[in-house]
């Protein structure tokens, strides 16, 4: 094998490669310049949970503890309470509501069992994944952090890419 053949072959290879590269330059780009650009996710993405409310802003959760029972990493803590007031005045949709609803994101594995277990469609996975914090104890999210009405005000709140909006504020039971 002579040096000349070697040089020719290498040059051809480079030209082949560069042709591919140059051909891609004018095409549409998939890479998102996160965090400089906003990101959207797929509808079935499992991010930080959302606690939903009904059309009148009443919490849907009835504190039945089924999500906590289904949770494999035992990260949901609930305290139920009775609210004897009429519908217009109470916090939740039902007399029974969650006084305390905590999810410990130190432990949550985002498996989605809680969402499947919920008989009232009160809890779903949202699309917020930016939950890194400087302090571990901040990963314990309370009802105030999880309620959809509160999360909508946060700059981290995001919706899914598709038109199928599973993240609607109120969904038919």
């Amino acid at each position: 094998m002579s040096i000349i053949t070697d040089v020719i072959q290498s040059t051809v290879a480079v030209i082949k490669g560069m042709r591919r590269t140059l051909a891609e330059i004018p095409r549409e780009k998939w890479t998102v310049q996160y965090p400089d650009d906003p990101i959207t996710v797929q509808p079935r993405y499992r991010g930080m949970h959302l606690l939903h409310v009904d059309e009148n802003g009443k919490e849907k959760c009835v504190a039945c503890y089924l999500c906590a029972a289904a949770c494999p990493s035992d990260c949901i803590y609930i305290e139920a309470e009775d609210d004897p007031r009429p519908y217009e005045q109470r916090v939740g949709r039902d007399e029974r509501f969650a006084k305390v609803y905590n999810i410990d994101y130190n432990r949550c594995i985002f498996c989605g069992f809680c969402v499947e277990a919920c008989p009232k469609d009160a809890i779903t996975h949202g699309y917020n994944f930016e939950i890194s914090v400087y302090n571990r104890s901040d990963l314990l999210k309370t009802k105030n952090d999880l309620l959809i009405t509160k999360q909508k005000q946060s700059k981290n709140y995001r919706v899914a890419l598709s038109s199928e909006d599973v993240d609607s504020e109120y969904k038919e039971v």
Partner: protein
Amino acid sequence: MSTELIKVTINEQEFEVEKGAKLIEVCREKGFGIPSFCYYGDLALQASCRMCLVRIEKMPKLQTSCTITCTDGMIVTTQSEEIEKAQRAMSEFLLANHPLDCPVCDRGGECELQEMVMDWGDLEERFVERKNAQPEKFLSPIVANDPQRCILCKRCTRVCDEWMGEEAIEAGNRGVNTVIGTYGGWLGCSQCGNCIEVCPTGTLLDGVYRHETRPWEMDQTRTTDVYSSDGMQLSIGSRGGEVHRIVARDRYVNGLNGEFLDVKARFAHGFINSKDRIKTPLIRYKKGGKLIPSTWDEAIHFVGSKLKESGNNVGVVASSRLTNESIFTLKRFATEAVNSNNYAVSDAYDLAPFFDNLSAPLCTHKEIRHAKTILLIGGEPEEEQTFTAKQIRQAVRNGGAKFIVVHDTPIRLAAQASQFIHVNKGSLDAFALAFADQSDATITKKLGAAQTEIDDLLKTIGETEGDFIIMFGGDLSAEAQAVLANVAGSFASDTRRALLHPLPLYNNSVGANDMMAGKKPLEEVLRTSKALLIAGSLPEDKTDLLANKDFVVVQELFETATTEYADVVLPAASFAEVDGTFTNNAGFVQRVRKAIEPIHQSKPDWVIASMIARELGADFGYNFSSTMVFKAIADSVPAYEGLRYPLLKDESKPVQAKYSPVAKRDLSNEFAALRRKVEALPETSEKITETPRVGHKLHRVTTMTGKTDQFHLLAAGNPKPENLLVSPLVQFNLDGTPRLVEMAEAASVNVKDRIDDKETVASKVVLK
């Protein structure tokens, strides 16, 4: 039941069973599961749920196995396509009107209907019709009712009638319109809550535990009741250091009481996690000054130095609510740490005369249930020893026992009696004398009863074949108790057993009597000692004696009239926070188990006593282990010899302390004293004709029951609120007066409000 054996073939296997056995029991015992709702052993038969259907050869249709008694040569099939089809159809019918609100139902997770439907129900419901929605309402401050969830098994009505004899809850209307209801829509009963316990669905619910947590979230701890002396076994449901509820369900605990509990045992647990609990040791450095929080180290050191100053003049008083371990340690504290014989039990009813003259064996609750003749002298078991009262009722009702009541008040239980000897007010002592010494006919004059009545009573006892039980309580004088306990043994014969049953006031009165052998009367100890260590509180009328004492240490849960005189108050742990034992009125030594860690800085009473003892230089060698304390008890108290915690582990086989009947003693002194007392009674006296109100003792607000708000309403006469949909606690002040201002918004809850919730849930899920 005869012991004759007959042959029964179940699912092609042949078994020998006792004649007269229930088919459903036999099938279950032999391992063939049969579903049922309305069947409840020990209650009258109902056969209304029709889930227990079986095929019996030569019988035309499927039969309900709960109503069939086994006969010789019976051939039974419990599993076949035909039976399963019938059972599945039945469960579908039961669910036809049952709402799908398990997520908000407090029974969800331990509901018999839920379990049965998982086994026998279909996944889909075929009924698309609108359900007969009815709102959830309150029947009393502690009983909530959701009529729509009812499957009409009528366990509650049978329990109310047979166990409690109250008939407060009954089925009304007929056919499809049948509802379980109360008279006037409000429960005026003793609020025992047994209807809640036996309900297989979420129809009757605990109003104290309402919407607090869910069954599977709680840790269940088997332990013993802290109120009545019957030693009822119960299960504490706790979660995260908080006691949420108390039940006696078969799935959690199988004690001597089955699923029976009374209102205090079941609902008055609010004191455990009460915000009024004493949190830290408190010291009053100057007489008349304030109680100031301190540390344990400082408090123990302070107590030690002060008690050293008082030398041998230290008195020790134990409450009979404490565990055996605590009372025993307090006695050792008196004898070993401060070298004094001044120790007493703060119990209004001293059991020593009873146990010192015990001439017959102690009777268990099972023996009451199957007794032939029961003689009740004084006392009021339906208010204070509720389980004993239930056993008496069942013995009379289901066992045909003869029940004789001797009382100056026509108590409610007297309605069940075959003979009621209504004596003059306060002349029960005269009866004791007349009963023990039948030669003197003049006594009956003072008694206010005819001699023939006592003759009838003696004749009934003479005719008894089987068990004859004498029970009496603390309203007799000490001499009368000694005489009665002594005379009981003489009624025994070849065909008859005579048994004794005391009616103590507190959960561990019997144990306190055993532990504090050689105790002195309470008043004497309070008068003679300069310094006092008091565990628990004194009766309110005795607290005056604490004035002008040099030094008073009180171990308590709450600030009471006694702690007002205390120089040091040490926070004690309640029964749910300690390990130990209680001894009940049948002599059963039963375990108390720790359900939650001691609240705040409290410590068990025996730990506190041994810490002070150590400060004074006496070490009991317990190493802070309650098993060591119990071993010391077993070594030094004769009746408890050889007992250890592992032997007491199984609550379904309680172990009786070995009280040996004493030989008949010469009681002429007691007789003479009793005669003097009887002679002092007036010749003529008016009789009490009024039957006491239901719950006049049960619903009393005490330091412990008062911490559960519902008891204030019960004590205030259990008023019926205007709006049954909302808890009475929202609508009334604790003294029973209507709460006008705050009530407005809660009272505006209307039926539509509650039904809308249900309909949206029910109809939508069905149509899905």
